[in-house]
């Protein structure tokens, strides 16, 4: 039988985009958490981590309220991009971000904080701006842990189910990611499709995990 590979490609695309955004935003948030002292710092940390512990349906519900077509954010998106956010593949990216971002922020904060402070002092003493200190000293010294965190975030983005289903829906050929497709195939009694997708996803996850372990701090 003909296997529809679209869900796999869609998931890959969602995971790549979401990981890219998570790395960019996550590094920035982690940098602030690791270097700045301000009120509500731990509250920010908790807020970023919250999605890791909330049930997916709860998260999906919040997202629908937050970026649904009736919400201010949803209307803004529609005004700027000309089409709604929810029930598109971009919504699946947002759903994946909810889990990949906390993973990244947590690991990146720990990685940045574990860099010996005397290197940062030395860099400042030698006249380096905070920007150069971050890019030339702190980040290179923390990069293995951050790569590992990005790999984990990528793997996590590949397989989101609950939140994706709620905000992106299950539109075959448009928003049906691989996790949703597997659920669909099992429901429809399509064993071959389910088995194939399960095997491919498992292999990919194993591969990424192996990569993450090799990249991890030595």
């Amino acid at each position, binding site marked *: 039988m003909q296997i529809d590979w679209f869900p796999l490609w869609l998931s890959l695309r969602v995971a790549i985009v979401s990981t890219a955004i998570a790395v960019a935003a996550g590094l920035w948030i982690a940098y602030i958490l690791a270097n700045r002292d301000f009120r509500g710092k731990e509250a920010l940390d908790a807020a970023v981590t919250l999605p890791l512990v909330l049930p997916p349906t709860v998260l999906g519900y919040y997202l629908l309220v937050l970026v649904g077509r009736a919400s201010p954010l949803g209307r803004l998106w529609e005004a700027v991009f000309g089409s709604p956010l929810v029930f598109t593949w971009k919504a699946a990216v947002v759903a994946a971000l909810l889990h990949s971002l906390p993973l990244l922020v947590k690991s990146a904060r720990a990685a940045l904080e574990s860099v*010996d402070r*005397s*290197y940062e*002092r*030395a*860099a*400042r*003493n*030698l*006249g*380096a*701006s905070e920007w*150069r200190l971050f890019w*030339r*000293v702190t980040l*290179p*010294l923390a990069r293995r842990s951050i790569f590992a965190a990005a790999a984990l975030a990528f793997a996590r983005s590949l397989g989101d189910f609950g939140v994706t289903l709620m905000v992106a829906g299950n539109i075959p050929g448009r928003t049906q990611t691989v996790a949703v497709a597997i659920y669909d195939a099992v429901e429809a009694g399509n064993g071959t499709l389910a088995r194939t997708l399960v095997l491919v996803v498992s292999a990919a996850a194993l591969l990424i995990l192996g990569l993450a372990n090799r990249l991890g701090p030595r």
Partner: protein
Amino acid sequence: MIQARLRKTFPPRPDSAGFSLDLEFHATAGVTVLFGPSGSGKTLVLDSIAGFVRPEEGRILLDDDILFDAAAGVHLAPQARHCGYVFQNYALFPNMTLRQNLEFAAERTPRLERHRRVNEMLERFRLNDSAGRRPHEVSGGQRQRCSIARALIGAPKLLLLDEPAQGLDAPLRAEFYDVLRQVRADFKTPALLVTHDLDECFELGEEMLILREGKIVQSGTPRRILDQPANLEVARLLGAFNLLAGEIRTLDPGRNTSRVQVGEFELNGPYFPGRLKGDRVTVCVRPEQLTVGARNGRPGPNQIPAELKRTIEKPHWMRLEFSGGIAVDLPRAEFERQRDNKEWVIQFPAESLRVL
């Protein structure tokens, strides 16, 4: 020239006693040593000058620049202070080669000159062969030279050294002293050196500040301080003295003499200005200023009979420890001549006596 007045308080906490730094000093060209036990605030002084720590009160002036002024609310960023800092662990960036470490530090020099300057420093500090290696791939001596080169490449107005010879073995330590003497001659950058090693003070220091619990208890040239510690506290910190309880018996400013009772014996000493007859004092005399002899009947003037408790081998001399807690350092040959003495007397040369 560096001029600093600093005050910073750390209130006591359940897990730590409080600490307060409160001192004022100035240092001109040459190496000024900050000497003191651990926890005396030496590194805190360096960190305040480098801008890593903000004191509560005071003022730091480097040449004509105000680095810090509490009253005026000035607290320059570390980047703007132009102080080269040699860290205790060197803090060479492990992700860069030695050359890249120097290049990183020279980023402020114009591009054309940067390359020349890096090469010049690599040459001067004998790092040419290891320039392409990373810090963990080179020897301790190379790491140390690289950290000094890195601190100097931006032409700082002041060099701050935080126990840079700590934990080095003897040859490396000697090499480091040579490097630093060379730096002193070539760069003429004034330096503040933190240490708790008395030998280092003498090897390198023109001036010496003795710190204890956040305060300066004495300052001067190392030689002067060793010759006349300001008080018992300083003498104990230097750890280089016999300290004996005594009482002043007579004082004669005209003949520049005095007599001090120590135990049941009287010792002749020089006149002690500012002391009164009957003052209870601590007699302070260095082990190498004392000599010993065999006892023949009654002890002569300025001799105290004592029992030899033990001898300790030192590289270039012998330390003899006597009853009453008196230590005497003798050249080896001298000890060999006397080693068969049955009973001993310790000779206190009159001019070597100090009282605290």
